[in-house]
């Protein structure tokens, strides 16, 4: 199977993730959708790496994994803090600053 099919799959995953960010209400689920988008980018990188025959893309995928882990640390800390203060992780409830 040609590796370009993985790029199509990654584009699909990325779209699902982006739609999830826009549609879902729970901050944790929104965050999971963002992780899905990052992993879609990873799949794209690895597929193109295979196609081009150089390792840049695979190495980038490692970097992206590390960044995603760091983002989880920071993101979950912030979301848990919000949840403890409000007993809700819904992004719709966080609207103190709406005009």
């Amino acid at each position: 199977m040609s590796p370009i099919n993985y790029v199509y799959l990654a584009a699909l995953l990325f779209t699902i993730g982006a739609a999830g960010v826009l549609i879902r209400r729970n901050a944790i689920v929104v965050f999971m959708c963002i992780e899905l988008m990052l992993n879609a980018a990873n799949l794209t990188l690895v597929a193109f790496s295979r196609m081009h025959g150089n390792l840049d893309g695979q190495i980038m995928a490692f970097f992206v994994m590390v960044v995603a882990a760091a983002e989880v640390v920071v993101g979950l800390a912030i979301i848990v803090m919000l949840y403890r203060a409000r007993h809700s992780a819904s992004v719709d409830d966080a609207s103190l600053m709406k005009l």
Partner: protein
Amino acid sequence: MTGITDLASAGGASGASGVPSLWTLAAGAAGAGDKLQAPSIEYGKLSPVLIVLGAAALGVVIDAFAPRKARYGAQLFVVLAGLAAAFAAVIGLAASGVGSSKAQIAGMGALAIDGPTLFLQGTLLLVGIVGAFTFAERRLEPAAHGSRVDSFAAQPASVPGGEGEREAVKAGWTTTEVFPLLMFAVGGMMLFPAANDLLTLFIALEVFSLPLYLLCALARRRRLLSQEAAVKYFLLGAFSSAFLLFGTALLYGYAGTVNYSGIARVVSGADAVSDPVLADTTGNDALLLIGGALVVMGLLFKVGAVPFHMWTPDVYQGAPTPVTGFMAAATKVAAFGALLRLLYVVLPGLRWDWRPVMWGVAILTMLGGAVVAITQTDIKRLLAYSSIAHAGFLLAGVIATSEDGISSVLFYLGAYSFVTLGAFAVVTLVRDAGGEATHLSKWAGLGRRSPLLAAVFAVFLLAFAGIPLTSGFAGKFAVFKAAAEGGAGALVVVGVIASAIAAFFYLRVIVLMFFSEPQADGPSVAVPSVMTTSAIALGVVVTVVLGVAPQYFLDLAGQAGVFVR
């Protein structure tokens, strides 16, 4: 990474069904006796960034091991010494000609150390020093149980209004973690405009964004607002960086490399492509156009351009005001530096495609920011919309696609960042019983109550509005001149109209401060320590000097205005 790439391409052409096999290649390469080249790192040229990140790591160690009482002094010393040493290193590099004739690509192609990089790194370091002053201010909050505290939460992990918070406040704790977070943010921002491949761009983006997300959540007062700002900033920031990353992946697929000059060569079609796979992907314009658009989108989010600006007012309002001031100034400097490099170095071959889009974005940003700012009633939100409008003016300079465009944007960034820092430092001083009094109605008659502070704030507002003899005028003039000469005359007309609209609400605040009666229960002006005073004084001095005698600094920006490729 280059060494590995060479290895891969050495035997990469052989493989089944046109797809080069990475597995056989590894064995073949080992058999051929090739060795991985050890990377050569130009430590001298990277020293500003290394000093800042080293000081940040030292700050983490201090926070882990030093006793609570000693932390504040030690952290402040490390931050200021680190930033000052890094600034000295930048000056040294610039003096030795690295900014002009000896500009080069460093760190195995990862970073470009050239004029714009050094100019922006110097600006960021000065912004960091002034930001650290406002972070360390301990005279504004009333002393909590006998110990002086700053504007950051006693213990961020505790629930607002809960038992844990009461105990932490009683014990007089402060969050000294803000100093290493500030340093990591400054370090990432210094890498951001220097990034010379898309991977470094993404990593630098995350390195400066993650500390900023945390800093937004740490306000001592109005913590619910602060936490809400952090969640919004984090979710939207991570969303936009995912777009940037996917764009990076598509551009890598298009060009087979993430190196800026490599992509630029492929885009311009300078090299003949022999590899059949590469010929296939470089023939696919969808990869290039979508990839480029997604990367630019990620950067436009960071500069706060319409339609990617929705986070700006909420985050600026909710974040602790010292953080807002630092973030408003420094993020814009770093992100415009990266945007300039991307558009001028990587995608000049695509400028007939991106210029019309950026025209639209610039017009929307200038008009959108200026018009919506008129309806604002909170001073921090007002400054947030004003920063959106300024992002639009800066985009006009970016669109010029000329050397003047680069240097005028550099000058504008330097001028704008000090005005912003000073303005937000003033906002921290106007207080009532509930903390900072940010509602505009509270600012009525401030000129009668505290003429000096109101006058200083009026200077900043006039600079924002671009009145002559302030740095705002010099910056705006340079940017609009470059845009007009670059063939964007209509954009300049829109920019002038947006400036006029913006001037209305800046002047409205001045009128409110000086020509209306003070409220009986109005706010008082806190007397700051020498740190906030010097932050505001520096803002005024830079604003006036760059307004009255801008030529030296325009020349400096002009000399710095060439990207190395």
